[in-house]
């Protein structure tokens, strides 16, 4: 009885949280009696009284929005709905008309969103994958879908600006510049076979030679023409160049936009403010419905992640406890192992270099052996990409980093290996084409490129990229059929110890994503020389999606070690950007430095590919020329640069201010919590004193 005012008072003062910090015994008992949900109506955050009031004030937001998100049982929600509906006739006719309009607009929006869902590519598959295997694996498939859409849109771009005009204006149009230069350089005869056997078509399909070489697939087929009718004027070489440049810029914008959405999530989670343990405990379960075996694995997964964190703690303690001697030994071991890993990677590069040169010397071979020599660089690259990371994993065991550092180091090494091996391949090709950079050497003196070995060197580079893409696809198919399905059949049906130790395959997200990044980088490098490569890559990635999905559901078990979904998506986009940078470097070098072949292609009589831009520039009208000069001049670019610096500084300052205010608010929250506890203790003490006084007063009487 006398404790009533205390409880009511405390409830008024702290109504945002129903239970106060230190419930007295009766209070706690009361809470335990009240076990049904309905009594939890005074739960935080959803003050029902405000909702109908808002309704009457604005008259705009429809009931569905508020009602569905209220955490009440259905019966109460329906009661609230009835109350809301009964309030409607009070408003004027104009407001009711507006309300009906917003409601129908709302329904229309819902229908539109549902139909949009229908058009989203593979939505149901991704939902199923996410539901069964969790966010980490789903992020791989989302990344794959992003790449498919990117490649398809790029193909549409290239088709619209380069392919279709080339087809349409094939016969029309005049040559841009009349031929100058020695006649030997202009010799290019790709169809010199005559009668060919049937299987040769198949070999040609795989290696891009023969009937495929002189087709729209490769650079060599496009013509150096400009069409100028009365109403239409189209400069095909210029279109080719600008489309290539715009394609790169467009891909970069897409990647950055996607990175922006992921980064927003990563930034919103704050720095190290929230630790690992609570997050793993409350949000760590990747739910699935795959049966008992998968559940045990999921539990092991959570257990593994917790153990990783526990182990990191103990490792840190141990590392702090090392003597100086042990520290020196450990660090020197790590440096040595780093060199060993580096040495392995360099050995892989040397292998690629040798293989490419050897493949070039044997380029005249026929038949299956010829095909093998054509594919030799691809084979060496793929083998290196497979073997070297395995060895590096063994090295990492000796290095004894913390588990998270080990993962990051392994990933960085794998990325470095893949991208730079591609770079080595290209570098070797460039060496062959430009006679090792020596323009005046015997082979290159005449045409400034090695015309004997490569009469049309752009097509050759395009073919190399085409072969890499095809080989990647073939290897994936071969692995699926020859390794993954048999492995599952062996493990499931043969119950020996070896089979159980090998176990079913695990879907390792990081390796697969690196494969995707590698494939995309190859396409970017090759797009300038093989304009249809994005289309081929779209088809390849679509096939890859279905192959991976099949393998995931039939052959894989849930992974024991998982990735944090969000940060890894960001990391993959960063790696994709590295690939993009490599491809851009290649493109810039090809555009600016090497002389285009004189026998083929749209740039055949230009000293460099870029030189078409100045040539066409001077054909524009004087006003446009002056305007463009002005934009490029210092009077415009320096103020623009200064302005963008100012804008960037503004955003950086804004971000740091937000970060500081978040930290301040967090500290304030802590302080207020402590204040509340202190006050509650005071109230209890006072009320106890009051009770004692009352009892003694009563005893007196």
């Amino acid at each position, binding site marked *: 009885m006398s404790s009533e005012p205390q409880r009511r008072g405390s409830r008024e003062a702290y109504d*945002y*949280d*129903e*239970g106060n*910090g*230190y419930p007295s015994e009766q209070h706690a008992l009361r*809470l335990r009696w009240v*076990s*049904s*949900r309905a009594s*939890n109506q005074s739960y*935080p*955050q959803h003050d029902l009284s405000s909702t109908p009031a808002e309704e009457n004030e604005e008259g705009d937001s429809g009931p569905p929005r508020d*009602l*569905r*998100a209220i*955490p009440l*049982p*259905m*019966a109460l929600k*329906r009661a609230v*709905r009835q109350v809301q509906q009964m309030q409607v006739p009070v408003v004027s006719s104009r407001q009711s008309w507006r309300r009906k309009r917003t409601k129908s607009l709302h329904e229309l929006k819902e229908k539109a969103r549902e139909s949009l869902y229908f058009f989203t590519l593979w939505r149901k598959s991704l*939902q*199923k994958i996410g*539901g069964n295997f*969790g*966010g980490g694996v789903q992020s791989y498939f989302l990344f794959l879908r992003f790449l498919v859409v990117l490649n398809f849109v790029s193909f549409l771009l290239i088709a619209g600006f380069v392919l279709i005009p080339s087809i349409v204006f094939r016969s029309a149009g005049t040559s841009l510049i009349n031929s100058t230069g020695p006649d030997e350089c202009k010799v290019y005869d790709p169809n010199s076979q005559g009668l060919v056997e049937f299987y040769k078509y198949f070999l040609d399909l795989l290696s891009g030679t023969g009937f495929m070489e002189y087709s729209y697939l490769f650079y060599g087929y496009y013509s150096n023409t400009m069409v100028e009718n009365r109403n239409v004027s189209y400069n095909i070489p210029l279109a080719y160049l600008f489309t290539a440049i715009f394609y790169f810029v467009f891909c970069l914008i897409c990647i950055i936009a996607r990175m922006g959405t992921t980064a927003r999530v990563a930034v*919103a*989670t704050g720095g190290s*403010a*929230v*630790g690992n*343990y*609570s*997050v793993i*405990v*409350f*949000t*760590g*379960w*990747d*739910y*699935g*419905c795959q049966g*008992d075996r*998968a559940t045990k694995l999921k*539990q*092991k997964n959570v*257990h593994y992640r*917790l153990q990783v964190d*526990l182990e990191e703690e103990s490792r840190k303690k141990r590392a702090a406890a090392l003597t100086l001697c042990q520290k020196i030994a450990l660090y020197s071991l790590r440096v040595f192992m780093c060199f060993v890993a580096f040495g392995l990677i360099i050995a892989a590069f040397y292998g690629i270099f040798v293989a490419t040169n050897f493949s070039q010397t044997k380029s005249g071979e026929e038949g299956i052996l010829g095909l093998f020599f054509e594919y030799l660089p691809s084979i060496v690259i793929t083998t290196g990409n497979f073997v070297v990371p395995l060895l590096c994993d063994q090295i990492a065991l000796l290095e004894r980093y913390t588990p998270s550092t080990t993962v990051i180091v392994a990933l960085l090494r794998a990325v470095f290996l893949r991208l730079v091996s591609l770079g080595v391949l290209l570098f070797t090709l460039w060496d062959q084409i430009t006679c090792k950079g020596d323009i005046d050497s015997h082979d290159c003196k005449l045409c400034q490129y090695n015309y004997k070995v490569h009469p049309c060197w752009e097509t050759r580079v395009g073919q190399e990229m085409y072969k890499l893409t095809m080989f990647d696809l073939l290897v994936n198919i071969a692995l699926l059929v020859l390794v993954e399905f048999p492995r599952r059949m062996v493990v499931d049906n043969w119950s020996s110890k070896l089979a159980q130790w090998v176990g079913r395959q695990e879907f390792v997200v990081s390796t697969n994503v690196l494969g995707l990044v590698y494939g995309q980088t190859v396409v970017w490098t090759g797009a300038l020389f093989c304009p249809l490569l994005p289309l081929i890559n779209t088809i390849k990635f679509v096939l890859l999606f279905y192959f991976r999905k099949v393998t995931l559901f039939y052959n894989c078990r849930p992974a024991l070690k998982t990735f*944090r*979904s*969000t*940060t890894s998506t960001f990391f993959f986009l960063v790696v994709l950007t590295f690939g993009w940078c490599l491809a851009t470097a290649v493109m810039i070098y090809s555009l600016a430095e090497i002389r285009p072949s004189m026998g083929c292609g749209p740039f055949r009589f230009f000293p460099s590919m870029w030189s078409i831009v100045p040539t066409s520039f001077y054909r524009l009208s004087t006003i446009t020329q002056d305007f463009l000069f002005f934009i490029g001049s210092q009077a415009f670019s320096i103020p623009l640069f200064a302005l963008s610096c100012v804008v960037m500084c503004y955003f950086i300052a804004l971000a740091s201010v937000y970060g500081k205010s978040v930290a301040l608010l967090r500290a304030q*929250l*802590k302080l207020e*919590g402590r204040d*509340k*506890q202190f006050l509650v203790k005071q109230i209890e003490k006072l009320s106890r004193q009051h009770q004692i006084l009352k009892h003694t007063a009563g005893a007196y009487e």
Partner: protein
Amino acid sequence: MGNKQTTFTEEQLEAFQDCTFFTRKEIQRLHGRYRELAPHLVPLDYTNNPDIRVPLTLIVTMPELKENPFRDRIVETFSEDGHGNLSFNDFVDMFSALCETSPRELKTIYAFRIYDFNRDNFICKEDLKMTLNKLTKGELTPEEVSLVCDKSMEEADLDGDSKLSFSDFENMVSKAPDFLRYQDSAVFIKLPLINNVP
């Protein structure tokens, strides 16, 4: 519509549509699933709002819930009597609150209630221990369990009363990157099966 015996009246369907995140079709599918659990108990005709409750033991046999370590707690939280016997209203409520389209805030509220085993509106250490044990099914040693619980409490408890109030929980969970993006959590039922029911 209207080719078979009607399960709900128009206004019932509208009420359901307004109060949950489901469309009419999905609500009827849900009724089908509900009926599958206890065909003799649940009538086909719901037009007069029969008061039928399917017991806990039948609900947790659903494929979406069977493997979830928190299935009992989930069903208890959404039941009106607190013992896990769900009427159809509760059933629809449960799936609506935990489906993919429901907002994060709503899920956070229900997640808090589910993790609060002793229903005192706080997640205390015992609640945490029970959560962890259900998650890892006894794989961790008792010392590790208490270490993880201590560390989680330390990280998430803002006002220093050694238990998590709703605001602590919400603050911690809203920062988890996976939670924001994919809403992975033991509690959340992914519904890959509900849309495939014929």
